[in-house]
């Protein structure tokens, strides 16, 4: 693991455990930041980079599992690695069901933690890339005119130019021109490419 602009957050109320985790992640050149409580974590200004959260199950005030749910509700989608002093099976099942990456019992093997953190960062990186791509497509979609958006819907629904021309009561030539314009604006390499983009737009704008 090398410093690749990613960040690991640690929330554990035990300072010595928190420090040791920071120390371990530092030793593999992972940028890391520790917090004593969920509140401290939420109030801090967090860098907008691929990240992962290492969370103690037993926290003052609320449990790590509750905090995880709260994060999900408020739209913070961080991959989470749980650590606990005394984990039982039901607890770990609940954590994994809620979408945790890993559930580790203290004292854990350091490689397990590093692997889990790596996996979490990677997931976040992918999620962020995904988000960026979607945003790109939406930006391009917004450059289309009302007519072009209309024709895009017909074309991606599988209708050929002639049918579209008949539906909209325009000439086939006009449809062709619009279509070329759409392909250019959307930076689509082929019709299937355009269909995929349309699907993602449809998924995002219901």
């Amino acid at each position: 693991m090398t410093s690749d602009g990613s960040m690991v957050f640690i929330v554990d109320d035990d300072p010595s455990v928190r420090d040791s985790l920071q120390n371990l992640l530092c030793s593999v050149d992972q940028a890391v930041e520790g917090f004593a409580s969920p509140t401290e974590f939420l109030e801090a200004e967090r860098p907008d980079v691929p990240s992962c959260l290492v969370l103690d199950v037993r926290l003052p005030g609320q449990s790590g599992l509750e905090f995880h749910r709260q994060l999900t509700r408020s739209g913070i989608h961080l991959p989470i690695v749980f650590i606990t002093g005394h984990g039982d099976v039901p607890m770990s099942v609940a954590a994994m069901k809620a979408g945790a990456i890993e559930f580790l019992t203290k004292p854990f093997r350091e490689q397990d933690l590093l692997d889990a953190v790596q996996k979490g960062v990677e997931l976040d990186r992918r999620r962020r890339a995904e988000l960026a791509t979607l945003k790109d497509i939406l930006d391009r979609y917004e450059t289309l005119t009302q007519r072009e958006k209309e024709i895009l819907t017909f074309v991606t629904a599988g209708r050929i130019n002639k049918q579209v021309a008949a539906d909209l009561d325009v000439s086939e030539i006009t449809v062709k021109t619009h279509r070329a314009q759409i392909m250019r604006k959307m930076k689509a390499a082929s019709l299937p490419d355009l269909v995929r983009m349309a699907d993602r737009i449809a998924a995002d704008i219901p």
Partner: protein
Amino acid sequence: MTDVLLPSETATNADRLVSSTRPGRGQLRMAAAVSAVLLLAFVSTVPFAGIPLPGTEAFLPAYAAAVMVSDLVTAALLVSMFVAGGSLGLLLLSICYLFAGVTAIPWALTFPGVFAPSGLLGAGLQTTAYIAAIRRLAFPLFVIAYALFKDRCVAGGHARSVVWSVALTTAAVIALTSLIIASDNAMPKLMLDERSVTSLWSYVSEAGTLAHILAIIVLWRRFRSTLDLWLLIVLGTMLLEFVMLTYISGGRLSLGWWAGRVYGLAAATLVMLILLLETSVLHSRLIRSVSIEKRARDARLLTMEALSASIAHEVNQPISSMVTNANACIRWLDRESPELERARSTLGRIVADGHRVGAIIEGIRAMFREERGPRESVDINRLIQDAVRDLGLEARLNGVDISLTLDPALPRVNANVIQLRQVIDNLVANAIEAMDGKGECVVRISTAGHPDEVTVLVEDTGIGIPEDVDRLFDPFVTTKMGGLGMGLMICRSIVEAHGGQLSVHNNVPKGAVFRFSLPTYHLSDSRDGESVR
């Protein structure tokens, strides 16, 4: 069953038996009322006592059957009390009732004119009278024996004593009956004919009356329990019956004769009912105390779980960070250019965490140490005798004998009485529970004094100990169903806190021997200094 017996929980159930509790005010009042009714009945029948009631032989078998059942049930109840309490007196009293119950059979069978004109079994004219005389004389004598020996305990297996008693009593009744029948003609005559007695009977009467009065006096002087109270009433009733039969009634099958019978039966039934009632009350009390005990044990188990979970968490945190830091340290050193400064500071944190674990454990120990009471000079023999007395019922219920070989010159030790008692209770209770009921079931406890230490041996002949002897003293290791596995661990830590040693090895041919030693010199280590007020 119990792993850790605290002294306050070991009050024995034998203390609550009808044979050892003092009668309450209600019982005294009831006894007075019953006596009054019986006396009234006696007085009111006196004027009519002489009226003969011929033909009432037909009721005799029913009467005899009632007497037999009542006496045998009473005997059985007394036996159950004997098994629980082990008193020789109770065994004698149950033999007394057994004897009375069994002799009712030949008495009724040989009664002339009931089953056959001159009685069954080839009985002669004198047979029934002799059996009756023996029955009547035996009862007060047995009661006197009971009164004299009620504090004496029977050594050895109680079940065996009961079996022998029943067998011998039955044999004695058969032998006596046969002897009486065989020598019917040779013996002095008690009966003139089938209805009237000879002048010789008056000697029997006088001896019987005397015996009853003597029994009443002896029992009165040693009066202690509810059972004694009702026995006094029975003796009184039988005395009245005697007086009625001998001096007032008009011979066999007269109204007075029958009235005497009915008093006797009423009194015998009363004792039986009282015993039954007390036994069922005791039984329900026992059930309640067992369930209370179980709840207490469950609560202890829960507390123990919560405690161990919180200790585990406290200790786990620094250990976890030590492991993580040590791993980080290895990584700092493994880098292409080892980061010595980071490695050094990481090692510093590991040291700090190690100290933190130590402090946590010291804190836990201090928490427990506060409950260590003060130490004083303790007589271990006395402690063992108390423990054996309190655990006696449990031992008897399990059919286990406890034998003591105590060194009379045992030096005293400086110890905490409550903790040491806990060790002894635990070892003895374990030994009792270890018995599997096969072969000889004996717990031998012995003490021996040496120049600088005393040793205590607790030997059993039970199932013995598993091979990994040393694990036996670890927490949460148990060989018992529902055991916590804390008892021996606590025993060992108590003995070691007193500067002694607790060890175990297998007994020959079977069972286990637990041995602990305590120094006789005054302990003056620092921990002791803290705890002494």
